[in-house]
């Protein structure tokens, strides 16, 4: 009994070391992944963010074809950086909708004027409610939703030029 007790601390410590080791190995990806992947888009209906684009509702995302949903804001610098890539995806025939986070109509309009407008529908999400419901923790993020309204992919951060092909391929697969 006493012998076992004496070695117990070392055994406990070894277990902790193991946890640490596993923890260190997992550090490559600090991003917070959405828990919604593989699940249907939660119900929502957003008012239009800018004149000229209709608002966005969950039902719009379940109409037969896969679509991208870009979570962005006019005040977000990386969103400006990814605008050309969204335009490229649009030119490849991929429909893109957007959710404008904590934004003002005139700012969104100016953003679309300055950096290009790849969007079909743009919903205003002034309190980040839809953003959180989608499981997005920042801007920009892009979701791929298939024709049945199931979230298939979450892209965290701005889309880089070299990532356009992969997103295109994922969209093709979701058809």
């Amino acid at each position: 009994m006493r012998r076992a007790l004496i070695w117990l601390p070392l055994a406990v410590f070894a277990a902790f070391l193991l946890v640490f080791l596993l923890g260190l190995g997992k550090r490559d990806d600090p991003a917070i992944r959405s828990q919604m992947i593989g699940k249907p888009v939660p119900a929502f209906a957003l008012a239009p963010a800018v004149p000229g684009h209709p608002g966005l509702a969950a039902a719009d995302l379940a109409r037969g074809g896969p679509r991208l949903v870009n979570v962005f804001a006019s005040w977000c610098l990386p969103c400006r950086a990814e605008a050309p890539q969204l335009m490229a995806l649009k030119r490849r025939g991929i429909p893109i909708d957007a959710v404008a986070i904590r934004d003002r109509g005139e700012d969104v309009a100016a953003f679309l004027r300055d950096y290009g407008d790849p969007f079909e529908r743009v919903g205003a999400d002034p309190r980040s409610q839809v953003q959180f419901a989608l499981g997005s923790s920042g801007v920009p993020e892009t979701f791929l939703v298939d024709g049945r309204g199931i979230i298939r992919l979450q892209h965290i951060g701005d889309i880089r030029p070299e990532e356009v092909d992969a997103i295109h391929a994922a969209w093709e697969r979701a058809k």
Partner: protein
Amino acid sequence: MMAEFALAALWLAAALSLLQLVLGALALRELPILPVSAAHGEGDHAKHGGGADRADSPSTAYGGPPPHGFAAGRTSAVLARAVRPVAVAQAVLVGAAFLLLIQLFLRTDLSVQLVAENSHTLKPWLYKFAGAWGNHEGSMLLWVTVLAVAGAAVALFERSLPERTLLATLAAQAAIGLGFYAFLLFASNPFRRLDPPPLEGNGLNPLLQDPGLAFHPPTLYFGYVGISIAFSFAVGALVTRDVGPAFARAMRPWVLIAWIFLTLGITAGSYWAYYELGWGGWWFWDPVENASLMPWLAATALLHSVTVLATRDSLRAWTVMLAVVAFSMSMVGTFLVRSGILTSVHAFAVDPRRGAFILLLLALYIGGALALFGARVGTVKEGTTFEPVSREGALVLNNLLLTVILGLVLVGTLYPLATEAMGVKVSVGPPYFNSAAGPIALALVLAMALGPALRWRRDRLKDAGRRLRVPLAATALALLAAMLLLPGMGLLPLLGLVLALGVGTASLAPLWGRNLRRTPLFIWGMVVSHLGIAVSLAGMASNAAFTEERLVAARPGETVSVGPYAVRFDAVQPVAGPNWTAIEARLTARRGGGRPFLLRPQARAFFAPPTETSEAAIATRLDGQLYTVIGRTDESGRWQLRLWWKPFVTLIWLGGFMVALGGFLALVGRVRRARRARRRGDEEAWA
């Protein structure tokens, strides 16, 4: 040149650390083991020339004159004498390297990568100075500096430990140092040059740009790393199989010093988080707070068990274990913070390679110490035994409860890591910690009230109850009053408040019936510390139970009431500091018919690096604090205001400082008594 000088000093210090380890180990191998009886007891105080005396003993002990043994004894005595100066020289060198780093920061020498990444020419002087340790490399250099200084302090001032144990202790301290020197030199070199140097530095994280940064980390590190001494003492005692009251008495002041710093550091850190983060909370169970709390819990347990060992020669193995655990917790904390494995304000550098390096050091040191414990502690004889109802029994209870809290905090801190390894991200927050640790902390406080009223060895609960009848009556009255006057109060705050009163009275009990002028200083120390715990508990309970919070969106001109105050929102105005601009609200607060006073909370925007912080404006009164924060504005011109009235919240930190003050009184009392005893011993030896 300065950076190169400093780097050279660091390398030299590392080399000396290696030398210290080798010298100590060699001397230890060749110094004969003394019979245990001679290492304790009466011979205790005549240890100054011990090494030299004993060097001759093999020749007499073996009967014949074995020439080798004699020569070996002589060399080992020489080796042994060299260890202390080496330890001091090492501390001087690494201290010099650290001062040079501070100098580099003060000059904003941008050709040094660390300065360029963490400083800025426009930063105020104080933050250039404190910025030296407000980053990964600098804080690790501070870590090693404190480690070396602690070792040097033992080398210079420790006179009561047997020479062999002291050598083993200093060798162990050097062994710890060596690993962290390697970490610093190979994985976190603070003196790396940049070529070409940038025109301007990146600046310091604005959350750290607070006078607290100048005091909080060094204080905490002195405690955090100072506890390494206890670890080294334990290793030394295990190596030499010398665990007894003399060892405990020698270790106690060192543990006390580290514990005082740790207490001060945690208290100051808590207040810093309270006013700087602007959330109105005083403890967040942030992994880094836990990393400083865990060594404190272990050190507090150690402080009590070491007293049992010193006074009654009990709890030998347990005390050694706690000494190992206390510093292990410091190292685990360092690992958690420095590896970036947990996210936190304190995680300056997120670098898994560094994490792997520290993890290796952890495995070596903690694993090594625990293995040594397993191998050796079986040979440490059981100390004396005692009855469950006795001072020892109460101290064991204290140790058990502290250990359980430590375990709960450790599990809560590491749980997210464990689940993440299995693919799920979770975070463990206050609900877990408060409900798990809270009740046990209350039980601990009860034990704290009872313990000092019990006699050593054997006592009866009835007698203790008689000694504590006044506190018991006070507790009962307080409970009755609280239930009648404050219905609907939460259970934990209610118990906390009532117990604070009862325990506060009970903590004074050891003074009753004593001649206060002749009461030893260390008794005063215990009383003040225990009273500090009660005071702190009262603050926590009062804050939890009576805090009033108002969250409003207000236009200038509106008045909001919170607690006894009516706060008028006069205006907002822009203000600028040396490296920030801010929106400042002007709030006029008024209590009843009292004189109105101005509060100016700010929302600051720093430009290097661009970050926003919120500077709370706090009005401190005798019965609490009015805490105000300004948040964002909305389109219609309203501003978010957060106002708190926190009755008696300041008691939390007042209690913390009392606990540290009590530790200081005990330290002075113990050291004075030991010195008197030694002087008496010397006189007897001469007589």
